[in-house]
């Protein structure tokens, strides 16, 4: 067995980071699209879709992401084909992200003060017009910081897909550890790489939120 330099370790981990980034993007964008569709059901006026989305959110927020991954992996397997890890990972993370984003965005819609509903109603607008022209434009502004903040959860969430065998940063960490017997260094570097991915997102979420608060005080 050859000796591994720190550079070898870092290079292997960085190569695997590409998959962490790709999976994060797929999960965040896919989850965002699905979450938006669910949001409209959740804040719509029909009762049963509202309840259904509520249940969906409750299940995904009330169970471990790891279990969701296992269920997708083995559940898809029940259909009789070999499930690739990337499929189970991508699908689960999209469904999981959608649940959280729907709930975050619903909170933002609720945060628009009642007077805005009343003023637009008194001007003769119907529900769809109120949403389209008055409520959603304001909710979207409030939604930006927590949405960016949630992207951090998505990046960290992708680490769990290593457990069902998707080779990304965490899995690479385990593989490299098994080859080098340097868990302290390897997991330390893995943690630092995650930090470099997540921290800018966390920070910009904070900055955006502060900006929004300042803008709000002006009103």
């Amino acid at each position, binding site marked *: 067995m050859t000796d591994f330099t720190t550079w070898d370790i870092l290079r292997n981990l960085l190569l695997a980071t590409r998959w962490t980034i790709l999976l994060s993007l797929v999960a965040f964008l896919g989850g965002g699209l699905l979450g938006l569709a669910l949001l409209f059901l959740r804040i719509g006026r029909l009762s049963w879709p509202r309840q259904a989305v509520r249940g969906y959110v409750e299940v995904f927020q009330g169970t*471990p992401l790891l279990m969701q991954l*296992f269920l997708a992996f083995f559940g898809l397997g029940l259909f009789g084909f070999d499930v690739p890890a990337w499929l189970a990972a991508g699908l689960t993370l999209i469904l999981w992200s959608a649940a959280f984003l729907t709930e975050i965005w619903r909170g933002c819609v609720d945060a628009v003060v009642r007077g805005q509903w009343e003023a637009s109603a008194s001007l003769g607008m119907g529900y769809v017009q109120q949403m389209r022209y008055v409520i959603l434009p304001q909710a979207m502004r409030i939604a930006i910081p927590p949405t960016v903040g949630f992207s951090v959860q998505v990046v*960290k969430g992708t680490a769990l897909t290593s*457990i069902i065998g998707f080779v990304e940063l965490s899995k690479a*960490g385990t593989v490299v550890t098994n080859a080098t017997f340097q868990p302290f260094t390897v997991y330390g570097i893995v*943690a630092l790489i995650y*930090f470099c991915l997540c921290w800018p997102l966390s920070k910009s979420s904070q900055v955006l939120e502060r900006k929004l608060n300042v803008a709000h005080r002006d009103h």
Partner: protein
Amino acid sequence: MTYQFDFAWVWQYLPVILKGIGITLELIAVGAALGIALGIACAWARALGPSWLKPVVGLYVELIRNTPFLIQLFFIFFGLPGLGLRMTELQAANLAMVINLGAYSCEIIRAGIQATPKGQFEAGASLAMTPFETFRHVVLVPALERIWPALSSQVVIVMLGSAVVSQIAAEDLTFAANFIQSRTFRAFEAYFLTTAIYLLLAILLRQVLAALGRLIFPKGRATP
């Protein structure tokens, strides 16, 4: 789909499942108690502590909040023995959860402290209390009351996140599921059942925390 669902194994493996539930509950009980305590200490340090301490705590909080729990767990269990710090699976799991919840609850509690009206600090000072006494007796409890719902949600998140401690062979509920599926080859059923149990635990935990909140912060008292 011609698959036949089979839950006949449940009775045979009930003790394994119950043991797993017990460990998961034990982990979250210890994790929540110590994690929140750590969070309070860090929140004090970040909001009101000496200036040299603030960046140290800040670094800890940012490091934990921006890395996956799984990696924190691996680092503690596999990495720290390299420095001579050896511990059992359960100890490592507990430590990881305390450190993780400590960082998140620090930020939550700090927000609660910062929402304290300035007059409360001034009133404390005018009654000749030291800043720490004011924090301890005047500021802390209303601050916790303010953020109790957010803190409760975080505890539930950490409980659900604890599923990954099975990866270092801590024998929690997920470990039980892994064990059962390896014996029965009924993977989907095993994980389906454990997922349902986690959902129930999450709902239960939320209610326990809400009840605890009502107990610690009796109603009718106004929070400034």
